């Protein structure tokens, strides 16, 4: 009992132990369960996303090492959320060098695993938040080559006079650059919408030029420059911005901000290489280091040479496709649901209408008495049945209406008992009459000398046919027709008898 109580207390105490979740930025006592909570997973995704963006900036410099100016090194810091450590660039000669080294280190990898275990996120995503040794080796190689290149470049740039001797222009641009420098542009990695940079320099005709500039290196190194070239259709400015993520790093130690320094697009030379040279030494506004190396075959003219714009070519190509698309869509639309109501009738009628348009005679079954299929109020069965019903009812109505003068004979209802009674009366009457009458020479029954005896209800009538009929009825096996006839006769006899009784 005591042990279970102790256990319970321990469990309760465990529950009470609060710990801080740096992902959610709150204290909790959920223990290990906390990482499975939906709020935590949401917070974790945003947390890692932010870290990922920072890493992508550093990854850019991993792929494209750039030389870091000492005066700007102090401004560059990187906070590693995994290790909870700040990495600064003091003493590094290349952009993000220390950060790259940190992210490639074994210590960071170990802490990253621990972080992912503690806070969730999936151990398979660990590679996204660190740099591999291979990447580090490549970067170091590039840095070495950059070092060698920059030393030679610095010699060359010192000897050349780039641009006109318009000091006013240069001074102005220098001023503006310096102003930019002095401005504290805030975050380390400013993001520009759609990768569009603000205008950094005064526009100058030399900025857009095709003259071959000897300062460009064949291997695409950044020399110096102050602007971006118009590169034609090979590689648009937006592509360049996209490929070179804008950060606040300096590209060259020896970069002289000349507005008229030209970065060539060597189309004229047929080299196919072109590069944008961004010589910005502005903090927060980066320069574009190197663009892309084009294949020579693609460099077939540009806006300056008067080549047709690519979007027109694209539209021409697409036009035939476009024309075909609406046709097909129209055809598709005209193909209505074959199972729709009256589909067969509709198709048939369309064909008939087309024939009529052409002037052909159509044998239609639409007479003056045509009616659509209609379901009646208390409908059961198909609509055609209701049409048939109506048509069957139609002939009856006109018959009644056409002969209104026909005498309508109203007959009272005569029950079967009455029929039997009347029949027995008739039989007796006939018997009596037969006794009283004899067949005369003319074939007519004549009273048998008992004219004076007045038998009530026994008139002198021709009853030659009556006995035979009654015999039929009496013998049985009579049909309804005979019964009807007998009833009629009985009725007539009754009427006559009544009259006789009434008459004085």
């Amino acid at each position, binding site marked *: 009992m005591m042990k279970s109580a102790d256990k319970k207390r321990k469990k309760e105490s465990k529950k009470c132990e609060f710990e801080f979740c740096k992902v959610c930025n709150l204290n909790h006592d959920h223990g290990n369960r906390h990482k499975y909570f939906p709020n935590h997973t949401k917070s974790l995704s945003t947390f890692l996303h932010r870290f990922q963006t920072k890493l992508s900036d550093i990854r850019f410099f991993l792929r494209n090492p750039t030389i870091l100016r000492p005066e700007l090194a102090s401004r560059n810091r990187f906070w590693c959320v995994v290790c909870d450590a700040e990495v600064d660039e003091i003493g590094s000669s290349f952009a993000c060098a220390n950060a790259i080294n940190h992210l490639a280190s074994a210590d960071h990898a170990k802490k990253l695993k621990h972080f992912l275990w503690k806070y969730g996120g999936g151990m398979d995503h660990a590679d996204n938040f660190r740099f591999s040794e291979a990447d580090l080796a490549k970067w170091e190689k590039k840095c070495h080559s950059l070092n060698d290149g920059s030393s030679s470049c610095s010699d060359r740039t010192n000897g050349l006079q780039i641009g006109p001797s318009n000091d006013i222009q240069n001074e102005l641009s220098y001023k503006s650059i310096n102003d930019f420098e002095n401005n504290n542009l805030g975050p380390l990695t400013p993001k520009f919408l759609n990768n569009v940079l603000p205008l950094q320099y005064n526009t100058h005709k030399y900025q857009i030029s095709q003259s071959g500039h000897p300062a460009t290196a064949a291997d695409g190194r950044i020399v110096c420059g102050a602007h971006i070239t118009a590169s034609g259709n090979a590689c648009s400015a937006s592509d360049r911005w996209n490929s070179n993520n804008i950060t606040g790093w300096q590209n060259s130690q020896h970069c002289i901000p000349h507005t008229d320094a030209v970065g060539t697009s060597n189309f004229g030379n047929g080299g196919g290489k072109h590069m944008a040279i961004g010589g910005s030494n502005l903090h927060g506004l980066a320069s574009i280091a190197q663009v892309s190396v084009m294949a020579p075959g693609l460099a077939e003219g540009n806006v300056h040479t008067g080549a047709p714009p690519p979007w027109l070519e694209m539209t021409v190509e697409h036009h035939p496709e476009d024309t075909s698309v609406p046709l097909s869509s129209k055809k598709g639309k005209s193909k209505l649901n074959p*199972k729709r*109501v*009256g589909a067969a009738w509709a198709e048939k009628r*369309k064909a008939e*209408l087309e024939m009529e348009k052409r002037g052909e005679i159509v044998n239609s079954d639409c007479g003056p008495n045509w009616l*659509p299929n*209609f*379901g*009646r*109020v208390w409908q059961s069965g198909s609509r055609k049945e209701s049409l048939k019903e109506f048509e069957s009812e139609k002939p009856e109505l006109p018959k009644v209406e056409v002969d209104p003068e026909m005498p309508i004979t109203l007959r009272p209802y005569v029950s079967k008992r009455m029929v039997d009674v009347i029949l027995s009366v008739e039989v007796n009457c006939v018997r009596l009459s037969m006794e009283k009458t004899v067949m005369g020479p003319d074939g007519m029954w004549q009273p048998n000398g008992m004219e004076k005896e007045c038998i009530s209800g026994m008139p002198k009538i021709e009853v030659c046919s009556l006995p035979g009929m009654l015999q039929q009825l009496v013998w049985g096996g009579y049909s309804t027709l005979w019964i009807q006839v007998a009833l009629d006769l009985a009725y007539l006899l009754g009427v006559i008898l009544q009259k006789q009784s009434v008459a004085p």
Partner: protein
Amino acid sequence: MSYLLPNLTKKKQVDSIIRDTIDKVLVLRFGRASDALCLQLDDILSKSAREVSKFATVAVVDIDSEDVQVYVKYFDITLVPSSVFFFNAHHMKMDSGTADHTKWVGAFHTKQDFIDVVEESGWMGTFVGKPGR
């Protein structure tokens, strides 16, 4: 208002409109121009006719016309106005809240009500393939 809609007075006209309206809902209003409720319905119909013209045709039938009496009897028109719906010459049934599912008796409150009913009929006829609920 019925002058804005085709006014049918002969059986032949009714036949032809029913037969020639293909893949569209046909609404035939049976009534008379002198009736107040018919006028109200005609107002709604004439205003909505254009909006539904892509998938419906609306016409009015004069119930007092001699030639049309066969249709009056056939559709059992006893109350005015009554609207009968067709799709590809097939009569479309609908539940108007009364026991009679063969027609719509009375007027509509708003244009949208009428448009909704016509859309429902068209949808049932075209996509569901059933001439009524």
